[in-house]
């Protein structure tokens, strides 16, 4: 752990700060999430560090609570996407044959429609609840994880050591969990970071379009939507979430890059 490069250190630190803020939001936020405490778009002051929003709520508190919502949804969706995608991907790779064909063609089909468009189509008939958002985003995105997991697993299952295990008579459980998974973990963990970023961007976009998290619940995309008119008067309220999303995503990217690099150098070591 001594060899972590500076960029990854910074990334880890920022990521930790954001997640801690999300977890302890009620303890940190100076005001309530939906509490109207001041005038419309008050400038920043010692009372309201980031000023107030379009109806006079403390922006910092909303940002903290908003981060909590955004990070929660993104995390849950990432977990769902990962569990579904990697289980199906490994299963397809190890089974092969028609199971693999059927799953892969179905995933091709889902991916032939852009995720955002697909999400919009589904949201036109489904209620926009947090659970629904998590399910929709998680399942749509699991197609990408599926592809990666399957590709990685196929690469590994043609390795002689997997064949050796099969010749030994090992069961499929051992082959997946002891032979395949440990070698697939690093690229998958790195991918997890990228998927999480994608989820943050996705949920923010949906909320911004008014089809994600519904008011008065706060999330970063929603804060932009609520405060976008302010931009025309030179009020930055709508830009703070942009800075927050950017720093969070860049941090995670730095960490993911580092994990991925470690993987490749490991591969290099294997020759």
């Amino acid at each position: 752990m001594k060899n972590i490069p500076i960029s990854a250190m910074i990334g880890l630190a920022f990521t930790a700060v954001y997640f801690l803020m999300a977890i302890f939001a009620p303890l940190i936020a100076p005001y309530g999430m939906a509490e109207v405490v001041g005038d419309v778009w008050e400038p920043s002051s010692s009372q309201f560090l980031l000023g107030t929003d379009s109806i006079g709520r403390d922006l910092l508190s909303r940002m903290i609570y908003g981060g909590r919502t955004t990070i929660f949804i993104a995390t849950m969706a990432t977990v769902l996407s990962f569990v579904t995608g990697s289980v199906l991907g490994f299963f397809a790779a190890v089974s092969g044959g028609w199971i693999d064909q059927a799953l892969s063609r179905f995933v091709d089909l889902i991916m032939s429609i852009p995720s955002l468009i697909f999400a919009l189509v589904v949201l036109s008939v489904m209620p926009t609840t947090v659970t629904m958002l998590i399910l929709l985003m998680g399942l749509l995105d699991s197609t990408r994880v599926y592809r990666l997991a399957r590709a990685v697993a196929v690469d590994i299952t043609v390795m002689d050591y997997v064949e050796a295990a099969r010749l030994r008579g090992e069961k499929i459980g051992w082959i997946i969990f002891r032979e395949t998974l440990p070698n697939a973990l690093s690229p998958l963990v790195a991918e997890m970071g990228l998927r999480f970023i994608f989820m943050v961007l996705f949920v923010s976009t949906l909320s911004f379009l008014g089809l994600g998290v519904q008011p008065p619940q706060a999330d970063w995309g929603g804060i932009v939507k609520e405060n976008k008119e302010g931009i025309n008067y030179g009020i930055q309220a709508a830009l703070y979430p942009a800075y927050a999303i950017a720093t969070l995503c860049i941090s995670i990217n730095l960490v993911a890059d580092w994990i991925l690099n470690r993987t490749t150098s490991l591969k290099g070591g294997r020759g």
Partner: protein
Amino acid sequence: MVHPIVKLVTQRLALGLLLLFAASILIFAGTTILPGDVAQQILGQSATPESLANLREELGLNDPPLTRYFNWLGGVLQGDLGTALTNGRDIADSLAARLKNTMFLAFWAAVIAVPLAILLGLLAVRFKDRWPDKLISGVTLATISIPEFMIGYVLIYWVAIRMGVFSSVAIVNDSMSLGAKLNAIAIPVMVLTLVVLAHMMRMTRAAILNVMQSAYIETAELKGLRALTVIRKHAFPNAIAPIVNVVMLNLAYLVVGVVVVEVVFAYPGMGQYLVDHVSKRDVPVVQACGLIFAAVYIGLNLVADIVSILANPRLRHPK
């Protein structure tokens, strides 16, 4: 005997059509078979049972799904996209003008982004691991970490409000001159360019680097050729297919980016139309827009596939 290329390309085209057909099923199923009740969604919780029944009748919701699907598909194939629930207008009519606007926006974004991305990708390769490469990958990292709409507002704030150039809303109509239109869409084009530039540059860089690491590049270097000659004569012919692939993938991505950017700038295109009608739960409009976006997306991916086939010397000159 049919040349294998012809056979492969025909296969790809047929596969593309099949995919589009399957996508139409998926879109239709997504809006009808899912457990949401469209009539209830449209009229809200307070609707009376009679009005619900009437609306269901009107929408044909009582027919079996398969019948409804084929009715819809039959209409689509004849250019009839149905009528909007919210205002009763013909969807095809409303879409035509908006599709043109969207294409106009996407076209100008592509015209700027594609050459720029390839150029910057080449620069990054030329100065690999030196500061231009690092700067480019840093900027890339930043732009892929911010959602499109936020790039939009950041640019509105800094360019339109603070610097006072270009307009923060992009209203265009047919009576405007090309110059006026371009002025109106300047910031949205910038946003879209930034959005796809990063991906495209990164992927171009990777594609070229991949080619540059081939043994035949070493052979060319050991012939004593100049670096530029090596790139022009040996790297480039092999890099075309991957680069076209990158461009097509990113144009497909651009089409999606358009949706959000149009909302930000209140631009009268298809994306805004779609988002508007999603919140109004106007299913026929959503289906029509979804199908068109899917068609464009599938079409661009198809072009990428076909270019890869055409550029492959093994397929072009079979044994």
